[in-house]
């Protein structure tokens, strides 16, 4: 009898090892403990899984390099501007104020009552970040420099005559030629 009971217990342990514990064999407390531990595992996702790696010393050095490069480029641009190599800094780089062009005209030619024609703003024109009137270092020393804003017109002459003829033209009335 004792041998039978011992052999039955041994057979059960062998079966359990082969098939794993049955659900009803697992104590309820263990099961609850297992459920409770799941959320803590989900929230503890490592940074590497999200590809959000903390800033290392290498990254900090890279950021410093980028900032240095941008600063140098800006300084170079400004120096070109002030020395006259660039006649004008593109306003898009320093201001959101747009240029007046065919796609985004700032003005239109309109008939004015009893005054002929004139240029009327068709949108708000901003001064934006002021750019100085002259772009030479020598000019910067002059106290009367004016600020200016958006570039409204840039055009080449339709007719250009020498200054010598200016006096001639000015002194000659149309009806007296």
């Amino acid at each position: 009898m004792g041998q039978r009971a011992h052999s039955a217990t041994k057979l059960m342990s062998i079966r359990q090892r082969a098939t794993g514990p049955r659900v009803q064999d697992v104590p309820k407390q263990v099961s609850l403990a297992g459920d409770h531990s799941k959320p803590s595992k989900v929230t503890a996702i490592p940074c590497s899984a999200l590809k959000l790696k903390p800033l290392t010393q290498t990254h900090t050095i890279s950021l410093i390099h980028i900032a240095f490069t941008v600063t140098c480029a800006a300084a170079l641009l400004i120096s070109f501007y002030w020395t006259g190599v660039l006649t004008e800094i593109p306003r898009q780089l320093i201001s959101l104020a747009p240029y007046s062009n065919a796609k985004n005209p700032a003005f239109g030619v309109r008939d004015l009552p009893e005054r002929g024609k004139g240029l009327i703003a068709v949108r708000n024109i901003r001064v934006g970040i002021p750019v100085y009137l002259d772009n030479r270092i020598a000019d910067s020393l002059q106290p009367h420099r004016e600020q200016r804003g958006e570039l409204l017109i840039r055009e080449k002459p339709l007719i250009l005559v020498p200054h010598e003829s200016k006096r001639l033209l000015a002194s000659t009335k149309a009806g007296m030629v």
Partner: protein
Amino acid sequence: MKVSDFSPQLKRAWFDYSDTLVKTSPSQLILDSVQQLSPEQVSSFYNLSHVNLPVNLSPEELSELLPLAIFQTNAVAAGSNVGLFPTMARLNHGCSGAFNSVYTWREREGVLVVHALKDIPKGEELLTSYFRTLQTRDERR
């Protein structure tokens, strides 16, 4: 841009052009210049206003004198030259404090630029000063 900056060919052409200034009348000079323009440019030129043109002119006289009258009414100083800029020519004059834009001739680029001097709300007229803003009121008068 100075004449000394021109290429030899352009310089020769320029002096030829300057010689004609002495030989031809101002009206003929401007008329010749207009005849060298493209049809679109001619159209924009004749769309400009003019003053000081006598009335009761014959068609021949009108065709000869009208270009000069338009030029005299609308041309502005461009460095050592005098230039006509059809878009800028539409800018009316505003007295001191009333003007909101300023024009500048860029010698090196050979262009005239107009910049806003202050914020201009939509619907407001663009005005510039035909005189140097640094002149006193008496000098401007």
